């Protein structure tokens, strides 16, 4: 009751109803792999929530103090304020350790979800036109996630992260020509410096999160504008979206996923210890510890540094130290390739068409091979980063392990790519639905290379498919509805229409070229009639609105604040609007 009145008064002032109506019936396709991005989003939410709590107690300063606190084994030691306040967060602040650990776990989860999301986008071709911008935004967010993860890991000024910072300092130094200047610029002097910690802090809690907030908004707005992609399936076209409405079905799913992410982050935070800096001890340049690894998402750099042979080159008389290649070199190449991938693939396939229906991975054996190569490559690097722990647990000498991994980094990715190519190619030719259903003939067929070029952006010709039909009927209340029927499947429009024409237009946009027939209303509860205004009036109002905007624009001056751009419901005609099929205005 109160909600309704509150909403009415809000609506009178800002006119939010059309926007809300549109967004509430927004349709999202259902597939479990579409949830990875949401997991990342909700990990970010968890990170912000827990991070705000942590900033209340953390002191980003290297000023020394004598530790007096709950952890007795440090009592009386001289430690930095950053370290002391982090130990205090773990031992003296109520629920501090829970929040610290939940924060760290959700950071690991955040990057893991981003990587899975990226893999899903990659293997299903969701980055294809028109979604290149969102691909670029997403890759940027991956880079920012790595950066922010590392700064957060380094802030407590403990021994383990101090070693990591020293490695980063050396990596920056290894950049030819500019290295020492960059290191001075970033670290404010020779490592370790007192200036570094405040810099890490402000970038970790303000700059990068702000950039994240902006990029996430852009990412989501683009998704809403461009609509979500969907897997191919019965009734799914480039011009429609089959799934659940935002309200209530998808909202419920999304909220339960948020709760699931929170549950996992806090369950891990409460039950599994992470980053016990009181055991690592305070950082001191004279000390070292082993094993020493960074968090998993930067461990590939560590692994590459461990595997790369100590080879210094001279290029144009300038020394390029060996740490440059596996760290800065590898990172730059990786991200450049990631950024460029949509254009690289377009250049290779010549496919410039707009796509809203995803490809199954098997349709592109070459892409799957590239993805398998990259994933295996980085997996081997992650294993290499843990070589001392593996050596200790298996009693294999470290040197032998490094030699084996050096061979593996060259051989395994290629092998994985070849196997992935053969399997996907065989799958493409088989009728089976999965790897387990592959036959010997399929595998033999898979040996011949995949040559089929994409049909250069042309939609399939609109021959009426014999086994599909769109049925329309008139409800007893006088409204109209329709449904699509295919072999073994049926999709119901989730909106009722005031007139037959309106329903007809919507059905034709969603399922162009499919035979239409009018039938008797089936049993079931009909939808209430839509409450939007008469189409003719809407159109007239829309035209007026556009005209007003146009005139205002011609004046080249911001118009008076009471200028009448558009009243509620005066939206320009974007019929047939968002329906269950969401027949969008796509060309």
């Amino acid at each position, binding site marked *: 009751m109160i909600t309704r009145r509150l909403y009415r008064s809000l609506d009178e002032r800002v006119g939010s109803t059309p926007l809300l109506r549109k967004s509430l019936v927004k349709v999202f396709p*259902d*597939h*479990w*792999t579409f*949830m*990875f991005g949401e*997991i990342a989003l909700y990990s970010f939410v968890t990170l912000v929530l827990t991070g705000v709590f942590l900033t209340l107690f953390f002191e980003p300063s290297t000023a020394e103090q004598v530790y007096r606190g709950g952890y007795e*084994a440090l*009592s*009386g*030691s001289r430690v930095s304020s950053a370290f002391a306040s982090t130990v205090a967060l*773990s031992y003296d602040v109520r629920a501090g*350790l829970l929040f610290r*650990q939940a924060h760290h776990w959700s950071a*690991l*989860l955040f990057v*893991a979800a981003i990587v899975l999301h990226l893999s899903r986008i990659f293997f299903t071709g969701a980055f294809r036109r028109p979604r290149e911008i969102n691909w670029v935004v997403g890759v940027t967010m991956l880079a920012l996630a790595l950066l922010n993860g590392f700064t957060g890991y380094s802030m407590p000024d403990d*021994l*383990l992260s101090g070693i990591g910072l020293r490695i980063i300092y050396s990596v920056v130094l290894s950049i030819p020509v500019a290295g020492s200047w960059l290191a001075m610029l970033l670290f404010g002097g020779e490592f370790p410096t007192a200036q570094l910690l405040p810099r890490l802090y402000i970038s970790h809690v303000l700059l990068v999160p702000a950039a994240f907030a902006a990029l996430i908004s852009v990412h989501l707005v683009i998704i809403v504008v461009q609509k979500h992609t969907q897997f191919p399936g019965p009734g799914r076209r480039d011009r429609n979206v089959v799934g659940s409405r935002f309200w209530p079905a998808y909202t419920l*799913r999304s909220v*339960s*996923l948020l709760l*699931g992410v929170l549950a*996992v*982050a806090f369950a*891990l935070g*409460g*039950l*599994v*210890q*992470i*980053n*016990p800096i009181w*055991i*690592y*001890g305070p950082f*001191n340049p*004279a*000390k*070292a*510890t*082993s*094993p*020493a*690894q*960074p*968090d*998993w998402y930067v*461990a590939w750099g560590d692994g590459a540094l461990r595997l790369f042979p100590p080879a210094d080159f001279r290029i144009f008389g300038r020394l390029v130290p060996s740490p440059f290649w596996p760290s800065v070199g590898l990172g730059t190449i990786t991200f450049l390739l990631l950024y460029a991938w949509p254009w690289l693939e377009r250049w290779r396939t010549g496919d410039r068409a707009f796509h809203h229906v995803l490809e199954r991975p098997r349709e592109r054996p070459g892409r799957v091979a590239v993805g398998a190569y990259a994933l295996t490559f980085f997996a081997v690097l*992650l294993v290499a*980063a843990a070589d*001392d*722990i593996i*050596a*200790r647990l298996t*009693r*294999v*000498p*470290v*040197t032998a392990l490094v030699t084996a991994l050096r061979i593996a980094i060259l051989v395994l990715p290629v092998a994985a790519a070849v196997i992935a190519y053969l399997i996907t190619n065989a799958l493409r030719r088989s009728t089976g639905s999965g790897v387990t259903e592959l036959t010997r003939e399929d595998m033999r067929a898979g040996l011949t290379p995949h040559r089929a070029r994409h049909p250069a952006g042309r939609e399939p010709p609109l021959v009426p498919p014999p086994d599909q039909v769109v049925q329309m009927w008139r409800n007893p209340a006088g409204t109209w509805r329709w449904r699509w029927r295919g072999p073994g499947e049926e999709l119901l429009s989730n909106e009722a229409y005031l007139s037959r024409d309106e329903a007809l237009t919507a059905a034709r946009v969603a399922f162009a070229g499919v035979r239409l027939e009018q039938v008797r209303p089936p049993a079931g509860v009909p939808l209430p009639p839509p409450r939007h205004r008469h189409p003719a009036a809407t159109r007239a109002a829309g035209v007026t609105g556009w005209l007003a905007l146009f005139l205002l624009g011609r004046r080249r001056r911001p118009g008076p604040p009471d200028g009448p751009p558009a009243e509620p419901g005066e939206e320009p005609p974007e019929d047939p609007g968002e329906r269950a099929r969401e027949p969008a205005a796509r060309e």
Partner: protein
Amino acid sequence: MTSSPPAGAGRHRGLLARLRRPTGAPRRRSRARRRLNAGIRLVAALVLAGGAYAAFAPGISSAEDTPQLSTAAKEGKALFDKSCISCHGPNAQGVTDRGPSLLGVGSAAVEFQVATGRMPMARQEAQAERKPPVFNDDQTRQLAAYIQELGGGPQLPGDVPAMLAGANTSKGGELYRINCASCHGFGGGGGALSSGKFAPSLMPASPAQIYGAMLTGPQNMPVFGDNQLSPQEKADVISYVVTLQQQKDPGGFNLGRFGPVTEGLAIFLVGMVALIFTALWIAGKS
């Protein structure tokens, strides 16, 4: 020899000459006499030196004939001759390519190696591993007494656990991170060294064993003698290691205290798998 001897030598010879020849008149002797004289003096000096050595040195012959061993050491010798002699040789002198000499290693080394089960070794390998000890405490002490009496060497202080009463744990932690963490790891879980060698986990080690290890530097470990880490500092380090051993991890399950490697595994195997099942449950495969 003949031409212009140094002043000191001349005086020395003059003194001997005076003893022999009270007349003191310098008289030229024949060359043969001089030679004979020198020969006699050389033989006498040799006999004197040999006799003195035989009398004062820890006798070789006397040890074999009448072993001056205490009762405990005798028991230890019996155990040694049964279980250790094949590699360390009779009288712990060592056997080439099998086992080193134990003369001078001291009782501390024996107590460490035997009490942790490293000795006797099961086979020749890069490094002896900790295993259930073969000898009980009494036998270990007897073996230690035997080796101690055989060749001397560093000994454990009487009661190591009692030294921990006044130890400074946080100073021990500092010393641990400077001296020990680079091999044994921040959490005392051990670490890998080159060529298949390793720094073992400190979790099962007793205070006396840690003290013995620092004092004697077993296997690949350097010796931390009393001039590097004083007994008090050793006690501090032991106190810190005991804290590490006894610490209940306040954050929950500690994932083996391996650091970010197991944490990364956990987020994929536990966190991500749980959420993927959640997503499958929520969204399905429609």
